[in-house]
């Protein structure tokens, strides 16, 4: 049954292409293309948010971190759910009430639209492309690992890229939404099944399960056999900087998730703010359940498969698929692999549509052409073309970087930019009367530059490699890192806020203060909010 994974991939691709065809006939007009006519139901959008958010890094990555580092991996997963409280309490409803397609819509109410939209668009494109490249390189490496006999890295990257372009160009937000919904359901089903099988292995006894976790046997880097209690903290986040790095990551998650463009655009697909709120709750139920179940996936892999075996059979990212193989054989392995593939596709499609919406709506229509379409349908046409370009560029970069490239830092960078550039200006524009255009531009620029600058001099990009490490796997700068943390949030988020506040205070803009009342009323009551379109 060596080709079972291939068959399952093909079934998933066939279903999603069918959906894209169906959606393509319902995607005429800007609100249909960018926001699925705002007719997605609350529970559907909640599932889609979960599908948009839980990347392969969550499914394969966290299972792998727990399988190798135990408790620290589980602690790492907590912030990914808690972050949704910021989305729920602070961002989702005002954004839905006052915006149209992008986060810049909210900023443009009271600030000068052109500079603000240009900067917001730049920040959105930065977050989306970096995140996308990380996903694409991961996808290529993963598909190669799972389907090594049939598909090379380059073919895998091109395949994923083309599928994502097809979904977005032809099916718009509606097709993207349904790809995300199907993926989320598959992911939850697969994870639940794996969890039940893990518990069955331990005769449904938590005592036996946690007993095994407290005695995990493996060989350390020196080849010594060690027995460790995997519930002990500190196996990954070691002093002096480990705990601080985790704190910094936590900040980036708590403030960054609510500034991720591909998550924010999802709230424009529902009819009103109340539905947006309910969809966050749905998403929280799914995302929370998923991360709790990483207990079974990660610790299950550590105890049943063992770090030694995983290390020699594909490495950390293969922990969950190998666990599936150990528990229920090759067909289940194929199913879990297909879910991992679906996961990547749904996330990259979401990233592509958020990038193209921002480019065509913010930059093309509103910055270059002052807010008017020169002919009907231009905004959607530009979006379709830019989806094609974004996809092609992402494919090219992923191929140039190659499968061994060190890209994990790109995800940290995306969250840092979202937290340090996007979130401060969204929050200040909704809550601070004095806030103005200079503050927004300054905040976005400082947040963006601080995140990129600090990542550049972090251990992710600055380190001295032994000569055995070659090519793109080598660190970019061969020197000791200047900034000791891999996650810049702890410094870049305050810098983003300071940039926005200082920029505001050194300039004077009476109109933005006068128009604050309009945004305040709109965002808090939903007066004049965009309505759902007719079919």
């Amino acid at each position: 049954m060596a080709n079972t994974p291939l068959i399952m991939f093909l079934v998933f691709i066939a279903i999603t292409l069918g959906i894209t065809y169906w959606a393509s006939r319902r995607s005429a007009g800007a609100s249909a293309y960018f926001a699925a006519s705002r007719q997605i139901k609350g529970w559907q959008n909640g599932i889609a948010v979960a599908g948009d958010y839980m990347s392969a890094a969550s499914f394969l990555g966290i299972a792998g971190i727990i399988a190798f580092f135990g408790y620290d991996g589980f602690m790492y997963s907590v912030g990914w759910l808690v972050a949704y409280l910021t989305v729920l309490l602070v961002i989702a409803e005002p954004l839905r009430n006052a915006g149209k397609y992008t986060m810049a819509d909210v900023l443009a109410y009271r600030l000068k639209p052109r500079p603000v939209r240009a900067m917001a668009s730049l920040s959105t494109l930065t977050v989306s492309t970096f995140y996308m490249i990380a996903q694409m390189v991961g996808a290529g490496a993963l598909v190669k690992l799972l389907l090594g006999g049939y598909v090379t890295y380059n073919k895998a990257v091109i395949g994923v890229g083309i599928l994502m372009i097809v979904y977005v160009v032809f099916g718009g937000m509606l097709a993207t939404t349904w790809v995300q919904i199907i993926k989320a359901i598959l992911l939850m089903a697969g994870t639940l099944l794996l969890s039940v099988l893990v518990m069955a292995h331990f005769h449904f006894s938590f005592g036996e399960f946690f007993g095994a976790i407290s005695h995990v046997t493996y060989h350390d880097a020196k080849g010594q056999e060690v027995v460790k209690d995997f519930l002990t903290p500190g196996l990954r986040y070691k002093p002096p900087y480990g705990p601080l790095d985790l704190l910094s990551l936590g900040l980036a998650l708590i403030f960054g998730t609510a500034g991720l463009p591909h998550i924010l655009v999802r709230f424009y697909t529902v009819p009103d703010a109340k539905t947006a709120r309910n969809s966050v709750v749905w998403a929280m139920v799914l995302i929370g359940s998923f991360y709790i179940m990483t207990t079974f996936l990660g610790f299950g892999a550590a105890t049943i498969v063992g770090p030694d075996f995983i290390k020699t059979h594909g490495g950390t990212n293969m922990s969950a698929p190998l666990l599936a193989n150990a528990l229920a054989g090759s067909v289940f392995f194929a199913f879990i692999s297909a879910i991992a593939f679906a996961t990547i596709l749904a996330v990259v499609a979401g990233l592509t549509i958020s990038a193209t919406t921002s480019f065509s709506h913010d930059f093309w229509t509103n910055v270059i052409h002052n807010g008017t379409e020169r002919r009907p349908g231009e905004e959607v046409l530009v979006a379709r073309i830019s989806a094609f370009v974004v996809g092609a560029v992402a494919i090219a970069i992923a191929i140039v970087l190659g499968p061994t490239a060190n890209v994990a830092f790109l995800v940290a960078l995306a969250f840092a930019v979202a937290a340090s550039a996007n979130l401060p200006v969204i929050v200040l524009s909704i809550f601070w009367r004095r806030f103005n255009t200079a503050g927004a531009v300054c905040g976005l620029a400082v947040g963006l530059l601080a995140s990129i600058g600090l990542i550049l001099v972090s251990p992710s990009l600055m380190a001295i490699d032994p000569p055995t490490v070659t090519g793109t796997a080598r660190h970019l700068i061969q020197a000791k890192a200047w900034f000791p943390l891999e996650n810049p949030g702890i410094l870049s988020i305050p810098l983003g806020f300071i940039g926005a506040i200082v920029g505001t205070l050194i300039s004077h803009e009476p109109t933005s203060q006068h128009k604050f009342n309009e945004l305040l009323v709109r965002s808090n009551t939903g007066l004049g909010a965009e309505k759902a379109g007719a079919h």
Partner: protein
Amino acid sequence: MANAVKNLEVQPTKYEAEQSTWDEIAESRAFKDLMATKRTFIVPAFIFFVVYYFALPVLVGYAPQFMSTKVIGEVNLAYLFALSQFFVAWIIAALYVRAANNFDRLAKDILNKAEDAKGGK
């Protein structure tokens, strides 16, 4: 019809009003009540979850011995505290949804009044 709709869509919104109307609503008793009601829930809830969440990496990072204390069988304090984060997040979300029904009710009155003033449009 499709063309007419498209031209409108480029505008930020379909509801437009004079500056004085926005000021009037923002200064009204009803709107101030709404904002106060929201603040009473959101500010403490936000502070609570941020403190509760960051207590996890701080305690685990700087008091690992204490957090390794076994509580139930092999399960230690660190694991239980991490697990509790999920339930606390869900509880806060549920409390917010309940509180938000109240916000909706207050906002509805403001909306109705504003739209009546527009003359049924």
